[in-house]
C-alpha cells in the first residue's frame, strides 16, 4: 500500500539526515520526499511517500515519532486528503510535434513556462496519478529532461497538522 506521511519537525540542522538515515538503516523504501520550512520558521514540514505492508508502515511511523526532532506526524492516506506534485518537463518541440505537445499540455491544464524555437518546458501540477498520466500522454514526444518535486499534501476539512 502507498502511504503519504507528513511530518512536522524542528527546523534544525541534521533533522533531515536523521529521517533519511532511518529509512536507509532499516531498509524502508522512499518513493519521494520533500521538505521546506513552514509559516513558523522554527518548524519544517516533510512529506514522504512510501510503499509497504501495513506492519512495515506502522513501524515507519513509530520510528519517525521516536526521532527527537519530530514534533508530530500524520499518515495522510488514513483519511481523506489532498495531494499535489509539481513536474517540469523539457520536450523537443519541432515540426508537427510542436502543436501536438501544446495540445496535450492544454488537455492536462499544464503551462508552458519556457519556450525556444525547438523546445517547450511544461509545468504540470496534480496528484501523482495525473502527473504520471501526463508523462504517458507525452510518450510520442522526445523528452529531454524531467524534474518532479515529489508529493506534498494535507488533510481535507478542518483537520490540520500543527502545534
Amino acid at each position, binding site marked *: 500500500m502507498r502511504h503519504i506521511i507528513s511530518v512536522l*519537525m524542528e527546523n534544525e540542522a541534521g533533522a533531515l539526515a536523521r529521517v533519511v538515515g532511518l529509512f536507509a538503516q532499516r531498509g524502508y523504501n522512499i518513493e519521494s520526499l520533500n521538505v521546506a520550512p513552514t509559516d513558523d520558521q522554527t518548524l519544517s514540514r516533510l512529506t514522504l511517500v512510501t510503499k509497504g505492508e501495513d*506492519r512495515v508502515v506502522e513501524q515507519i511511523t513509530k520510528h519517525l515519532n521516536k526521532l527527537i526532532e519530530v*514534533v508530530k506526524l500524520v499518515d495522510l492516506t488514513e483519511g481523506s486528503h489532498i495531494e499535489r506534485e509539481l513536474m517540469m518537463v523539457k520536450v523537443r518541440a519541432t515540426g508537427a510535434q510542436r502543436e501536438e505537445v501544446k495540445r496535450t499540455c492544454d488537455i492536462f491544464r499544464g503551462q508552458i513556462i519556457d519556450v525556444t524555437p525547438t523546445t517547450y518546458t511544461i509545468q504540470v501540477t496534480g496528484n501523482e496519478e495525473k502527473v504520471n498520466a501526463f508523462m504517458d500522454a507525452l510518450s510520442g514526444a522526445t523528452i529531454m529532461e524531467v524534474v518532479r518535486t515529489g508529493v506534498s499534501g494535507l488533510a481535507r476539512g478542518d483537520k490540520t497538522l500543527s502545534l
Partner: protein
Amino acid sequence: MTQAAHEPEMLSGGEMLIRSLKDQGVEFIYGYPGGAVLHIYDAIHNQSDVKHILVRHEQAATHMADAYARASGKAGVVLVTSGPGATNAITGIATAYMDSIPMVVITGQVMSHLIGDDAFQETDMMGLSRPIVKHNISVRDPADIPTIVKKAFYIAESGRPGPVVIDIPKDMTMPNEKFPYEYPDRIKMRSYNPVKKGHSGQIRKAVNALLQAKRPIIYSGGGVILGKASKELTQLAHQLNYPVTNTLMGLGAFPGTDRQFIGMLGMHGSYEANMTMHNADLILAIGARFDDRVTNNPAKFCPDATIIHIDIDPASISKIIQADIPIVGPVKPVLKEMLEQIEQSKLKVDNDALGLWWEQIEEWRQRHGGRYRSDDSEKMKPQHVIETLCKVTNGDAYICSDVGQHQMFAAQYYKYNKPNRWINSGGLGTMGFGLPAAMGVQLNYPDAAVVCVTGEGSIQMNIQELATCKQYQLPVKVLCLNNGYLGMVRQWQDMNYESRYSNSYVDSLPDFVALAEAYGHAGIRIESPDELEAKLTEAMAITDKVVFIDVQIDPDEHVYPMAVPGGSMADMFLSKTERT
C-alpha cells in the same frame, strides 16, 4: 541580597561543560585526552568535584560509563577527543544503544571553521554516531552548553534510555571567552514527551486475559531492570503464582532462586523455559522485545499464545511478533495499576488449570537441569566453575561478563537474586566489554564484590585496562574460563562445519598469571576441580587487589540447550547427542 549574588558567574565553554556535569550530580567521567578537548581537560584540572578516570583505550571508557549506568540506573559520562578518540568510542556507544543504556558521550571536534575541510583528526561524529545513538547534538554556541548538557541527560535517562553524543568543536571551549553560567533545573521539549503511564483500558483487557489463562507465563526483559520495576514484577508473579522466565538482559529482575523462576529463555535458555513458552496459552511480555535470540523462527513462535506486551517504546511492540493486547508505558506504573486492577477484579486465577500447568512445568524441569555433571567429572566443567563462584560469593556479586560460551554459562548457572547485578552486552555481544564494565562498577561500588567473567579470547580485547585498575586501585576479580579456543565460534564449527576450526584456536596465549603480576596484580591458576572452591574462596577474600583467576577448563564443552536453527522455541539440542 547583594547585587553580586544575582549575577551569574562568567565561565568559558570548557568550564561550563564541567560545571554542568557537577551540577548534574556527576562524580566520575571516563575518558582520554587529545587536541580537540585540551581546553576541557584544563577545566577539569582546575576543579576537584568531577573526577576523571584515565583509561588506556577509549572503548574501555564507554564500557565503564555504560556499566556504571547498568548498575546504578544513572547515565554514565564519557569524554574523548575528535577523530580516533571518537571512533574508538563507537563500539561502546553501539553496545549501550543496543541494550538501551543511558550514557552521555562528549566528543571533541575540530574548530568550527575547519569542519568539512578534512582537518587533522576530523571525523563526522554526528554522522558516524547517528544510527547508534538515541540522539546527538552538535554545539554551535558556547552559551548553549549548560542547556545542551541538561538536555542530553534528560534524553538519555528518560523514556527508553539510550546514549546521547554531544559533539563540541574546540572553539566552543576557548578559555578566554566567558559566558554567564546557569544550569537549568528542567528541560521542556515540544518534540519529546515520553509516556508516563499506560492506558487503563488496555490494562483492564490485559488483566482479564491474564486471569482467564490456563497455561500462562511471564516473560520479562531488560526493560524491567531499566524501569526499576523488579519489586512490582515479583509481587505480580507471586500474587498470580505464574511461572517466570527472564531474558538474558532481564536476569535478576525476578529472584533466580525463586521456585517460580524457570530460568532464562531463548537460544541458550533452559529447556523448561522454552517449553513453557512454546506451550503457553498466554504470554505476559514485560519490557522485552522478542529478540531473534529469544523467538527462534517467528513463524513458529508460540502457536497458542495470546500475547500481552508492555513496553515503553511503541516501536518494540508488534515489531517481530504481533501483540494481541499492547500496552505502551513505563513498566513500573503499568504493573502497579495491573496489581490494583487484579485486586478489584471479579475474576480469579484458575487454580486447577494452574496446578496442572505447574505439574507439566516440573516434569520439564526434571528433564534437563545441570546435566553436565553426568559427563567426565575429572575435567573442569565451566558450568561447575560458575556454580562454585555463585556459592563462594553467596550469589551476591556483580557479575560483569564478556561474550562467548563463558557468558552463557554465567547467565545460566549464577543465580541472580537482585536486579542490576548481571552486567553483560546482550544486544551487540561485544567482546572486550567485561573488564572495563567490572571496573566501572567497582569504582562506584568500592565495597562490592565485582567479578569479570571472561574467556581468554575476550579478555585480550581490553586487557590493557589492567593498568587502569592499578592506577585507580580497582580490585576487580577476573575469572577467565580459559578453554584455549574462541569457544562459541568453535561450538558453531562443531555443529555446522564438521569441526573445521577455522581461526578459532588462540595460539600463543600469554601466561595470564605472570601478565597480571607484571601489571602489579595478583594471579592464580586453577587446574583441577579439587582445588577450585578453595582457590576461588582465597581469591575472593583478597579485597584490596586485582586477582586474575585463570581457570583451565574443558575445551570440549558446549553450551546447551541450544535452539535448532529455523525451529520453534521447543526445538532444542539438549546435548551433543540429543535433541527435542
